[in-house]
């Protein structure tokens, strides 16, 4: 714009000089002055523009610097985030194994841990001779309290429904188990009698393949089911894997006998436990040794043979001695076990009380039985079955009629035939396994008592009435039980 004005002025001067022919010097000076002024203005404007441009360039540079810094910090944050994400992904991918998680969880739960196991059984019992048709129920929770890896407390509470309208509660097991080392353990309290195989290992409802117990461990037991005392026990591998040997030594209150009558007589029933000892001046001492001859890889199956003794004073100066031999054999679907028990009781008079008891049982699981051509549902049903047979018996010279109860309960059919001095029983069983620890058991007991023996009847008199026992009619009992081990 300024250049245009100057050009116009110069042209005007030239035109004017051409038209006028002569220019006044003062006017020329004035024009020159005007030109200088315009140039000066132009210079100032230029300087101001340059200053503005400089300022703008500085601002742009500053903005660019800030932008670079933002970009750098953004990149840094991005890198940090990526690194942290990568670390988290690594932590997730290399997280604890199930075993580690289990240990962490166990640590979280603490070292004092309670575990509840046990069993429950519901029965239907029929006995022909006593015209019994009844349901029965028994509940046996086991509480395990693990304090450390060398100390465990165990308590079993037994709740059942006897005749009448009330429930009955018992404490068959309450022990402290102290593991001293790999070969020794102390168990103290009230415990299952370690004599033989049955009380300790076979008595839970779902473990016993039959509904009832074999006669030597039934109502005419030869050895008390539980005892109060201290055990020292342990086991060791003496050869290849599976070749074991184990021992149990115990000191206990020992046996006691029913005392309904005023005087001890032959054939009295043994008490379930001897809580507080009365009229005895000695302890009961027991030993059990068990031996496993075959290694696992031998294909001979799993066999154990055992021997047991229990000795003590059941009355001041009067001995009780019992010994037994037992075996158990397992090979694939076949399982068999048996036992022989001999008992001697020194009586206050000259007569002694001798008894023998035994049982032998065998079962065969049909889960490996090939059944070609059958529908899958039928095969599945048959493969869950386990047929069983057991023969058991007890010999004793006499029985005490006052102690006879024919009220059935879990594990006992109620048949009076098994109270006879020479009781015999054939039990046929058929188990249907719903799960490894849930079984529906069905049993038919054919009671085969022999005639003979003596019956003592006190009926409140100090001297018992002695009568020979006549022939006891054979009896049949049918039992069905749903047993759940939990």
């Amino acid at each position, binding site marked *: 714009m300024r250049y245009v004005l100057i050009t116009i002025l110069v042209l005007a001067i030239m035109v004017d000089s051409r038209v006028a022919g002569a220019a006044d010097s003062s006017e020329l000076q004035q024009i020159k002055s005007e030109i200088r002024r315009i140039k000066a203005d132009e210079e100032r404007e230029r300087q101001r523009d340059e200053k503005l441009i400089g300022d703008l360039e500085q601002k742009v540079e500053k903005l660019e610097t800030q932008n670079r810094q933002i970009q750098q910090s953004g990149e840094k944050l991005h890198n940090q985030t990526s690194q942290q994400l990568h670390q988290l992904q690594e932590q997730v991918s290399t997280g604890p194994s*199930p*075993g580690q998680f*289990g*240990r962490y*969880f*166990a640590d979280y*739960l603490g070292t004092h*841990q309670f*575990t509840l*196991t046990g069993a429950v059984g519901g029965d239907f019992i029929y006995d022909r001779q006593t015209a019994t048709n009844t349901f029965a129920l028994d509940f046996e929770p*086991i509480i*395990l*309290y*693990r304090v*450390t*890896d*060398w100390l*465990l407390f*165990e308590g079993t509470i037994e709740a059942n429904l006897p005749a009448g309208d009330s429930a009955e509660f018992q404490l068959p097991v309450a022990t402290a*188990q*102290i*593991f*001293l*080392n*790999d*070969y*020794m*353990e*102390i*168990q103290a309290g009230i415990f299952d009698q370690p004599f033989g195989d049955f009380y*300790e*290992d*076979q008595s*839970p409802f*779902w*473990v016993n393949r039959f509904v009832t117990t074999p006669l030597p461990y039934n109502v005419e037991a030869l050895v008390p089911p539980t005892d109060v005392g201290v055990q020292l*026990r*342990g*086991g*060791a*591998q003496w050869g290849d*894997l*599976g070749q*074991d040997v*184990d*021992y*149990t030594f115990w000191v206990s209150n020992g046996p006691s006998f029913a005392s309904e009558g005023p005087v001890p007589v032959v054939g009295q029933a043994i008490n379930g436990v001897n809580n507080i000892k009365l009229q005895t001046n000695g302890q009961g001492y027991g030993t059990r040794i*068990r031996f496993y001859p075959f290694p*696992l890889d031998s294909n001979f199956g*799993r066999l*154990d043979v055992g021997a047991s003794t229990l000795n003590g004073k059941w009355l001041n100066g009067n001995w009780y001695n019992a010994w037994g031999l037992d075996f*158990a054999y*397992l090979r694939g679907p076949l*399982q068999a076990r048996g036992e022989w028990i001999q008992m001697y009781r020194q009586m206050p008079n000259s007569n002694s009380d001798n008894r023998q008891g035994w049982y032998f049982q065998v079962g065969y699981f049909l889960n490996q039985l090939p059944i070609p051509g059958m529908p899958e549902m039928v095969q599945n049903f048959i493969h869950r079955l386990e047929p069983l047979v057991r023969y058991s018996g007890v010999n004793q010279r006499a029985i005490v009629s006052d102690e006879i109860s024919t009220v059935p309960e879990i594990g006992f059919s109620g048949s009076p035939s098994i109270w006879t001095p020479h009781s015999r029983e054939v039990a046929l069983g058929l188990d249907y*396994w719903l799960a*490894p*620890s849930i079984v529906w058991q069905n049993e038919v007991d054919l009671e085969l008592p022999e005639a003979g023996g003596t019956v003592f009847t006190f009926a409140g008199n100090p001297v018992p009435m002695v009568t020979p026992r006549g022939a006891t009619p054979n009896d049949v009992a049918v039992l069905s039980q749903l047993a759940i*081990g939990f």
Partner: protein
Amino acid sequence: MKRIVILLLLVFLGMIALCQTGRAEEISKPEQRRLFRDGAKLWPVYCAQCHNARPGSEFAPYQWDAIMMHMRTQANLPARNARAVLEYLKGSH
């Protein structure tokens, strides 16, 4: 009589002291694998000697700790073999 009681008490305390040694040792990985392998062999046989073998999934690992202590007592299992069965049951949980 007093002497017998004192002697028994001393023996008992000595056993307790004895049992404190060598507890809670960490099992090395190779030994853990050996235990698991032996446990897999022993589990069906040891258990089935009395009852059906129950799978490891039925109880939590911490519950197996208590149950195997109980079973070691019931069946007088050799300690190392009981540990093998425990390792298998917990490992197959």
